[in-house]
């Protein structure tokens, strides 16, 4: 198994590209993030100008040619005036930036108006996601991947199951903490369809580095189709490999921690796997969902993400293949 490590690493590197998306405050596609980007650009420009001005004065002060008798009362008084003026100017700039900041906060607004509410629950080290039931349509649970309808305000309710995490999808909005014992909320609104990557931003333990989330903004029709699929139970495997995989999944420790709706597997410790094959990534943004990466993950989760709560379950290679086939089939 030792020799398997480099092999697995090469698997990671092979499957790596693909789900990069954009995770940058400077590449905004959501209304809140766009407002903040304007503020960022404005503030940085103002501050850069101030810095350049101060540096020019410093340079002049250091290198200017000095006259013989400099220290007269008159020049001292002129200096005082200049310093006072500079302080006043600082005050004015500061006040301007403060007002700009308040204005941005105002224009972002709160999530009160949102029609759709999604609850995100932080876990060490993945995201548990609940879509609430509304009227006759039942709610459902998923993990590490949020779908939102384009151009609509979405309220993200943030809770934590264990320690403090922070929900941050920079292209859509600023971050907000998930605090145990409290409930926060955040407004998301995507203006452009796309896959937006985000990542936990508050240090939360061993695998803080591998706790990514994907937000997929799509046309309302697509969103509804997706949500309808998610509400359903897991597909019954048609392919014999996958069917054998399901049997192994249920017989092995897997089912004690994971739920696959429509089967006896109803563990709640790990992520809900009912539609894992339809998600873009596994392991909280660690790997792209392919049969190979699923196999790599199941075979040795502690090498890929040391310290996470999924144990290494001893499996034969046939079992491993079958279970990964089954996982892949859970679209």
């Amino acid at each position: 198994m030792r020799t398997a490590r480099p092999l697995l690493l090469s698997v990671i590197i092979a499957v790596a590209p693909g789900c990069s998306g954009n995770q940058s405050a400077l590449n905004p596609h959501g209304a809140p993030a766009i407002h903040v980007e304007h503020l960022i650009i404005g503030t940085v420009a103002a501050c850069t100008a101030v810095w350049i001005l101060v540096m020019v004065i410093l340079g002049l002060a250091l290198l200017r040619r000095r006259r013989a008798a400099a220290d007269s009362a008159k020049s001292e008084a002129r200096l005082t005036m200049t310093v006072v003026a500079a302080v006043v100017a600082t005050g004015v700039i500061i006040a301007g930036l403060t007002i700009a900041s308040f204005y941005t906060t105002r224009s972002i607004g709160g999530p009160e108006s949102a029609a759709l509410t999604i609850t995100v629950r932080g876990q060490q080290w993945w995201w548990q996601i609940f879509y609430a039931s509304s009227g006759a349509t039942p709610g459902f649970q998923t993990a590490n991947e949020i779908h939102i309808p384009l151009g609509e305000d979405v309220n993200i309710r943030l809770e934590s199951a264990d320690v403090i995490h922070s929900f941050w999808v920079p292209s859509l909005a600023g971050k907000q903490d998930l605090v145990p014992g409290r409930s926060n909320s955040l407004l998301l609104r995507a203006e452009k369809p796309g896959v937006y990557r985000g990542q936990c931003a508050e240090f939360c333990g061993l695998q803080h580095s591998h706790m990514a989330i994907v937000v997929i903004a799509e046309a309302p029709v697509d969103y509804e189709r997706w949500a309808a699929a998610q509400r359903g139970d897991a597909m019954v495997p048609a392919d014999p490999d996958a069917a054998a995989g399901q049997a192994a999944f249920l017989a092995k420790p897997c089912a004690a921690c994971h739920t696959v709706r429509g089967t006896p597997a109803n563990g709640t410790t790990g992520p809900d796997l009912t539609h894992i094959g339809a998600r873009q990534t596994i392991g909280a943004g660690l790997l792209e969902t392919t049969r190979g990466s699923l196999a790599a993950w199941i075979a040795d989760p502690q090498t890929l993400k040391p310290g996470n709560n999924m144990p290494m379950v001893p499996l034969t290679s046939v079992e491993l293949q079958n279970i990964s086939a089954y996982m892949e089939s859970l679209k």
Partner: protein
Amino acid sequence: MTREDDSELRDTALEATELDRRLTATWATPPGLWGALSTVDHKIIGRRYITTAVVFLALGGLLSLLMRLQLAQPEARFIGPDRYNQIFSIHGTNMMFLFAVPVMQAMAVYLVPLMVGTRSIAFPRLNAFSYWMYLAGGLLLWIAFMLDAGPDVGWFAYVPLSGPEYAAGKRADIWAQMITFTEVSALAVAVEIVVTVFKQRAPGMSLDRIPLFVWSMLVTSFLVILAMPAIMIASTALILDRLVETHFFNPAEGGDVLLWQHLFWFFGHPEVYIIFLPAVGMVSTIVATFTRRPVFGYLGMVMALISTGVLALGLWVHHMFVAGLPRLGESFFTASSMAIAIPAGLQIFCWLATIWAGRPIFKTPFLFVIGFMVIFVIGGLTGVMVASVPFDTQVHDTYFVVAHFHYVLVGGAVFPLLGAIYYWFPKFTGRMMSETLGRWVFGLIFAGFNLTFFPMHILGLRGMPRRIYTYQPEMPWSGLNMLISLSAIILAVGFLLFFIDAIRSGRSGAPAPSNPWGASTLEWATSSPPPPYNFARTPVVGSLEPLSDNPDMLPVAAGLRVDCRELLVTSVVEAIPEAREPSSGDSIWPLWAALATTATLIWSIFTPWAVVWGSIPVAIALIGWFWPKGTSEDDS
């Protein structure tokens, strides 16, 4: 206490050489190990403090190189998450609690008594005690790290990650208890500085003649006194939660997770100014000396120092902008965080005006001040950025913030400190540091620093969170990270050269005259290094720049005894002589007290009963410390 007694030997009666011999006999630290362990000479302790803090700086720097090694490539496997978390936690804790605060206080321990023209610091034994406590706290942290029991919860140890449920073992307790050690020592030094500045200034040094460095240390000490109790309450509550099941931070039983953050940052934000304000004093001193004129706007500088100190206590919430607090409160803290830019700006403008009006001499200490200006202004401006709530929601806990506080702390404190070490090195050791090497050191550190930390701003805006031990290859961060890691080598070489220069110059540098820079403050009025009694006769001050007024002859006051340790007490405002006051002699008891306290504190990580049993040896040591020995110091 001012009774006249003819049998006492006063300095009025003696010739210079004879006075020198007798004062040495009274004030000198006896040779040998015992003398070293029991000394209370503020200069010896100050030098120890500085050396120890610089050793911790070097160790913390090594940790940062390890982090840079790991982050140079995506998904690198040099260091696993468990070790990496310990490394960054200890890097932060070490730099804040074991390097930055102590080194600033250490400079004050050495310099403040000299700058105010007195023979010793107030409460010299407490000073010895504070050093031993500091050393013990530092060793606790580092030994724990060596044994794989280092704290792994970040330098601000947010609960519940550091709480009983999620921080298994004793790692978080070690962090919390290390805080207790450094708090005790920092508070002790703060009290000494305040009393020294208020009551022991040279006759004539009224409030408006106090050197700016001393002013800055005074304000810093008050900040320490007001801010440190918050972390003391916080770390005690954390230890109690972990050890005896209190529920301060357990939301299910009425506690609150954010209570920790409020308490921590009520201390943590002033902490930044505790580190920065002494640097303001150092910069002012160096600027005044190397532009050959007093700092422009003395009163403005003092007001800026004080208002920074006051404001610093009122903006802790800007570290919690994304924790979900009420809007209104956030607006207030945005405004107050922005407002602190005004006194900071005033200070910058005053220095610029001083340089403008003066005649700059480009020696190494002054180069570091120029570097400070360039870097710190960037740090200050990014500080204004993160004070804005919406801006902060994007950059909080990212590499942007990492860059910001390194610009503030390294630019705002380490650059002035390096300048200050070059500046006061002759005073500390009697030898000059190398001017040629100094320029190299400055160039390498300046270039290395900016190349290392400037790209971090960009990384943060491009979505890289802080405290990650690795990142995935598909993220567009690897190029800049590699650049940063390579630049860190330049920075490290700069520091290495600095250490080499310091060690080499300390052994065989050119001998220093008593006032090599032509400075105007009192520490240069005595020899380099100063004799154990600092000044043969207490100087009398007639202006802000006593040495420029009378370059050849400094007026002195006389009348202190030479056969026992005695110093002059003056009034708070005008510094009018009030009384002669004895100063404690050498004693081993501070060391015993520190050892007893250390044992108690470490033991109490394991059982609460340690506090009960441990208090007995602590009480014995304290009684031994204060019990009169029948010497004249005790009985005058």
